[in-house]
């Protein structure tokens, strides 16, 4: 285990902005793609 607690986990050794900025945008982008694909599939079916 690397972390003494959740606050330490979110801080990422003071580099939280860069680490979470990377992960947040990555997962948001993938979620948006999945949403757009589902919408396109619904529209294509209609």
């Amino acid at each position, binding site marked *: *285990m*690397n*972390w003494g607690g959740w606050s330490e*986990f979110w801080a*990422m*050794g003071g*580099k939280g*902005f*860069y*680490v979470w*900025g*990377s*992960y947040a*945008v*990555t997962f948001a*982008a*993938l979620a948006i*793609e*999945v949403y757009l*694909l589902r919408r*396109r*599939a619904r529209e*294509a*079916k209609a």
Partner: protein
Amino acid sequence: MSTTIKWFWFASPQTFFPLAGTLARWSGVLAALLAVAGLYVGFFVAPTDAQQGEVYRIIFIHVPAAWMSMFLYVVMAFWAAIGLAFNTRLSSMMASAIAPTGALFTFLALWTGALWGRPTWGAYWVWDARLTSELFLLFLYLGFMALQAAIDDPRRADRAGAVLAIVGVVNVPIIYYSVQWWNTLHQGASVSLTRAPSMASTMLTGMLLMALAFWLYSIAASLARVRCIIRERE
């Protein structure tokens, strides 16, 4: 009794449609499970890097996204070339279905790279050979998509896109070998056996799990998109 798989049977968009749906669903489920495992290893098993501290944990999405950006381009160009050579409808549709997901991973490789570059190099962006050729890859994907969108007749759009995709494939080895051919700020290949074994093995495990997750996600997204394209065109 013949055991030959009837590959050409699946080359027809209509027969491929239900198979693509099943494959997309299971690839998506597996991708999610592998991502959970990869993130667990990446954040809770892999130790703090001796030189970079915690910021190196961007590697678990940066390297897999960069790998996928190049791999998907080659797969896209492959299907585009098959479609151009044999005039198979489904091949060209696969090329069109892969492009947006490839562009997305290229953007993510650049984005996570920028957020990693700032704390380690002091700059979000440098005109280094690796970064510049990866940016060019994004333009190739966007150019392919824009070109196809600009041509009304789908068969003509497929052929025009295929030519661009095939020409652009030269850029992939340039990206890959850029760190060797030029004196780049970007570090060399990250998968190496020269680091301390205990460190490298858990970091490598996390990275490979995330790469597998992104790979299966790409399969799921491309197949889901090819189903939309089949429905829209046929």
